[in-house]
């Protein structure tokens, strides 16, 4: 089948394309290479288009959108991050955060490509409208918190450089502390709202779909911890007037749990989120 063989090529090709893309942004960021400067945006567009093509081909080849396993979700997430970043790059006309954001997209894509399986048949449970709603809001939420985490990390790096007088490449090339904090905060608020929606829809849908459903499922507990941490970070900012470093650290811890929940919990505990 033609679609399947194209997918088989792209499954290796896409992470390689991302590796190249990250390399170009890295050379421009750390090496100040002018050739890399000129190359970065065209490469970004090409990789994003290839990625969209890959997702469409996968959908056609296996007769379902790649949202039914964690590794399918991860390639979707990588695409969403890359697309959001493309939008940000066009809007802000700066490429300086590209390396860090695209690096995250590359990591998600790499994990996905390593473990993704060609699934032709899927559980009929997964053909539900509620699930579509759940998945798209979760994807948006994860994309937003991923971006928020990258901005948060850059904030902490720049904060550290300024605080300790050791001004390095981050200081030279990254926007201001205030900008990073704002970007991180906006993305975090959006992410928190979308994740809340995803969780609510999930909680409505789960008891309908699974008889064996339990509120003590590790995935559900993990999700609840994440939600609480984000709520805590946002709440501390609002209620206690926390600013800067502390809120950033809290958000990054929350993001650490996101990654942990997506990988370790999904892989080692075969709970309700593993359908195959």
């Amino acid at each position, binding site marked *: 089948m033609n679609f399947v063989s194209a997918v088989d090529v792209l499954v290796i090709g896409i992470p390689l394309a991302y590796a190249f893309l990250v390399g170009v942004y890295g050379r421009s960021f750390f090496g100040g290479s002018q050739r890399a400067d000129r190359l970065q945006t065209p490469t970004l567009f090409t990789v994003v288009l290839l990625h969209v093509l890959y997702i469409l081909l996968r959908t056609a080849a296996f007769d379902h959108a790649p949202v039914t396993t964690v590794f399918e979700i991860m390639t979707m997430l990588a695409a969403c991050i890359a697309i959001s970043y493309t939008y940000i790059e066009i809007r802000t006309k700066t490429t300086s955060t590209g390396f860090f954001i695209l690096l995250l997209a590359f990591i998600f894509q790499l994990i996905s490509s390593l473990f993704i399986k060609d699934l032709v048949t899927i559980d009929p449970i997964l053909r539900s409208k509620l699930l579509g709603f759940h998945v798209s809001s979760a994807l948006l939420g994860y994309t937003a918190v991923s971006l928020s985490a990258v901005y948060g990390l850059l904030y902490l790096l720049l904060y550290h450089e*300024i*605080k300790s007088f050791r*001004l390095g490449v981050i200081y030279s090339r990254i926007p*201001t*502390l*205030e900008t990073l904090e704002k970007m991180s905060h906006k993305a975090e608020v959006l992410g928190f709202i979308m994740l809340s929606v995803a969780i609510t829809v999930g909680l409505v849908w789960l008891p309908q779909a699974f008889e064996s459903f339990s509120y003590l499922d590790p995935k559900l507990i993990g999700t609840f911890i994440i939600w609480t941490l984000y709520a805590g970070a946002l709440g501390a900012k609002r209620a206690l007037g926390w*600013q*800067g470093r502390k809120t950033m650290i809290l958000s990054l811890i929350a993001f650490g749990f996101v990654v942990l929940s997506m990988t370790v919990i999904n892989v080692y505990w075969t709970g309700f989120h593993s359908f195959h």
Partner: protein
Amino acid sequence: MDLFSFSINHRTAPLEVREKVWFSEQEARLGIHRLKEEHFEECILFSTCNRTEVYGAGAKTGVSATSIGEVLIDLKGAEDFVKPEHFVTGSSGEAVNRLFRVTSGIDSMVLGDIQILNQVKEGFRIAREEGALGPVLNRLLQSALRVGKRSRAETSISEGAVSVSYAAVELANKIFEDLSNRSVLLIGAGKTGELTVKHLVGKGIGHIKIANRTRTKAEQLVSALGGEVVDYELMVDALTAVDIVITSVRGPSYIVQPEDVERVMKQRQHDPLFIIDIGVPRNVDPNARKIDNVFLYDLDSLGTVVERNLGKREAEIPKVSRIIREEMAEFFRWHNSLQVGPTIQELRETIEAIRSSEVEKNINRFHPEDQELVNLLTKRIVNKILHHPITTLKEQSGNGKRKGEALERIKTLREIFGMGERQEGGSE
């Protein structure tokens, strides 16, 4: 025709010598006049506190670097101060290289400082108004200004703050997104503090507050810079409502304690506070640095910023040198082409003159039916002999040999064939 340069600068002479040969605009006009009368067909003179430089093209016979020096020294009456070791001179490639180094900023006292570009432009204008510019200097100055522009655009030679006050502003710009909705409090009325506030005003700082032990001094500053006066006794409380604090107070002890900062940070809900302590001894207890969202810089730490930026500028020198080499090649390609065409023409004419006069003298020795043949044969020999030198010359005009190498060859050739110095633009 050749190019000459003459320079007294911060590398060759101390300030007390440089200031003796500083030229005001009026003096520069006089200088250009005299130089043009006595030394060059084209010339330009510009003068700053760090340098006085003369560039000339189309030197008249007997012109030497010392004679340029004499004119300048004579005009300024500086015979007792300026010695030959205080200036450097150059010709041809050296002269062009010197000017390009100056406009690129790598010869500046503070590496990458390109204030000099404005002064060169100014000198350019004056020389033009005095009718001292011809095709060569016009082209040379255009190239020199382009070197300046390219160095700034294509390299980081002028990036990053290289003075303490600018370093403070650079940092403020890294902490806060938009200075127009931020405010600064200046405590004490020292020069550096005032300068830093002025730079912040230049960057559009939203609001200024000034506190000083002597209130009248603060009032004077406010009338000059805008803003409002704050009671010196209330200055710690004033920290609640500002984003940047500059302290430059003389005194034996800290005027701001960590506890003060801690309290203030709570009141301002941990909104970032940038403290610039330029007092000697320091005004703010360095322990305040440990508090979250407080960025405390003193003279030493600002110094590290300056050093870092200077280091980065130094790393850009090779890139700038490449631009200089490119522009030099481009300039000499043009300059050589100016010389080559007429030289070839003259060479042909000179040799042809020798040939025809010799043929004329001796033609009667030949049989009448051979005379036409003698003409033809001698022409052929001459053409064959000239073929190689002419092709070589033409090639050189196209490939822009460095540092006027091609020019030197043209000169040698003219000497060998006794063609004399060619005058620029003329048809000698």
